[in-house]
């Protein structure tokens, strides 16, 4: 079982991100479950979504308290919410920010953790350039695909094409590729 917790704010496509992640895992022949945190969602409010991926059918329906990966779509949440709570010792952290992990004040966490698994990517800026709108969700999934190898970029692209059409699909795919490439660069830096 591999579990992902995605933190963000209403309007960033956090719930859609969890759904797309589960759909991409499904395309790869895996079992997957996605669900949002349950609240009165509205633009700007903190939002949580979860995704579990496994080779066996998934029966668990509790919220994910001990994720293998945490994705933070809005870095302002770092100061309000315990976004890394319960994260596995060798887990992945992916933060949507123009700043480096050090600049975000997470250097200590970075050093304690597997440093190559703690990454920031300017997903909103990438989305703005590729899509015309700063909606970072698909770019973050591209970065997560490259970071964790949970899903392939190809599966992600397939489900993005199914979910969106025209320029929205192509823009999101371009954003996912660019974010993935940046993660790959960081890994070699």
């Amino acid at each position, binding site marked *: 079982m591999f579990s992902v917790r995605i933190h963000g704010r209403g309007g960033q496509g956090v719930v859609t991100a969890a759904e797309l992640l589960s759909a991409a895992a499904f395309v790869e022949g895996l079992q997957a479950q996605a669900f949002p945190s*349950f609240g009165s969602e509205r633009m700007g409010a903190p939002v949580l979504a979860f995704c579990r991926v496994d080779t066996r059918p998934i029966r668990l329906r509790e919220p994910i308290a001990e994720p293998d990966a945490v994705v933070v779509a809005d870095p302002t949440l770092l100061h309000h919410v315990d976004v890394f709570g319960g994260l596995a010792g060798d887990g992945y952290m992916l933060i949507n920010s123009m700043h480096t992990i050090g600049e975000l004040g997470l250097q200590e966490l970075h050093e304690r953790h597997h440093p190559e698994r703690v990454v920031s990517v300017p997903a909103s800026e990438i989305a703005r350039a590729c899509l015309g709108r700063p909606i970072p969700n698909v770019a973050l999934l591209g970065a997560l695909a490259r970071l964790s190898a949970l899903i392939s970029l190809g599966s992600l692209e397939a489900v993005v094409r199914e979910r969106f059409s025209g320029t929205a699909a192509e823009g999101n795919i371009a954003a996912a590729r660019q974010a993935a490439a940046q993660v790959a660069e960081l890994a070699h830096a």
Partner: protein
Amino acid sequence: MREQIEGSQAVAQAVARCRPEVICAYPITPQTHIVEALSRMVRAGALAPCEFVNVESELAAMSVAIGACAAGARAYTATASQGLLYMAEALFNASGLGLPIVMTVGNRAIGAPINIWNDQSDSMAMRDCGWVQLYAADNQEALDMHVQAFRVAEELSLPVMVCMDGFVLTHAVEPLEVPSQEQVDAFLPAFAPLQLLDPADPVTIGAMVGPEAFTEVRVLAHAKHMQALDAIPRIVGEYEQITGRPSGGLLDRYRCDDADTIVVALGSVLGTLEETIDELREQQGAAIGAVRLKTFRPFPRQELAQAIGDAERVIVLERAFAVGAGGIVTDNVRAALALAPDQAGGPDRARAPDRARAPDPARAPDPARVQDQGRPRLHTVIAGLGGRAITRRSLRGLLRRALAGDLEELYFLDLRAEVVERELERARKGVSGPHAESILRDLRMVMAGPV
């Protein structure tokens, strides 16, 4: 075809393949995705000649369903929480008139205090309204139960409520298989109403009945309900033959054969519960099993008594709570366990053991032991009220407590006892005001002053 899809969307597709003729609904969280999806299909002409009626309230939704169904249309609606309660009067009319309406309840708490999250207070409050009540453990079962529900409803001329936990199921995306149109058509014939309002051949439906016959009408309604205990296993068997998938039914046993502790539960908690049971069996060899209750009305007394057998301890895990009384499901379980085996089927129905897993007769309860030794010990556990997550960690703690013999008769899972104590202390000092607002201030969810 298996697809990765949200529970609500899958239920909408399953309902669509049942070829409903009238869908009427008023939106309320968390069932809204279902009727939104259906309204889009109707607007696109995919369900022609189905009519989607936007109504001004839930009372109107059920009233439109009653009128449509009485006129011979296959009618469907969905609601939750306060919406279901707002329908209450019409719910009794639908069942009293014998109208085979199918409705989804996306289970949600009832206010006050207002709460949009999941528990089963809504459908449990309506348990005696004369509708068949089915509770889905997962989304595959939820969508399958809807197709089965139309068959059960129309065969018996009874309305059926399919209850699925709000958010936990309605908003969860998982791999699901919606039966094909061909499969549904092979399973569900066109609606042939047993009674019909037709201007060309006028009849009266809904006459006033006085003391001379009201009891008899009620007894007949009960007898019809009890027939569902035979009809449901048969219909579910036919569904399995067509889809190749066992789904729904009266109840199922999970690892009960050698279990001395059995947890009776219904709804979406079952998956997490079964994970926990597997874990405790593996780690400490605990002989724990579960009974998955799927049909709550009519209540499958005989099947439940047989499924529990001679277990020493029964824990009824409930997502609703009867203030001033305790567990709702527990009372039904207690009544089932008190039956002598030869009465377990009830006086008005032949014995019909559960289809899928015929229980071992050797494990049927010995009434003398049940009565003389007070076995099994029965515990009520109230969990998951108002959206509090039911976790493996909590269930693990609960089951260990039970195995150690320390579980109270009535236990609230994950209760923040200190919060209750502080509020009681304030009340003793004469601080007035509603508990809900006082506790929110105590927890600093809101600042001092009016909430």
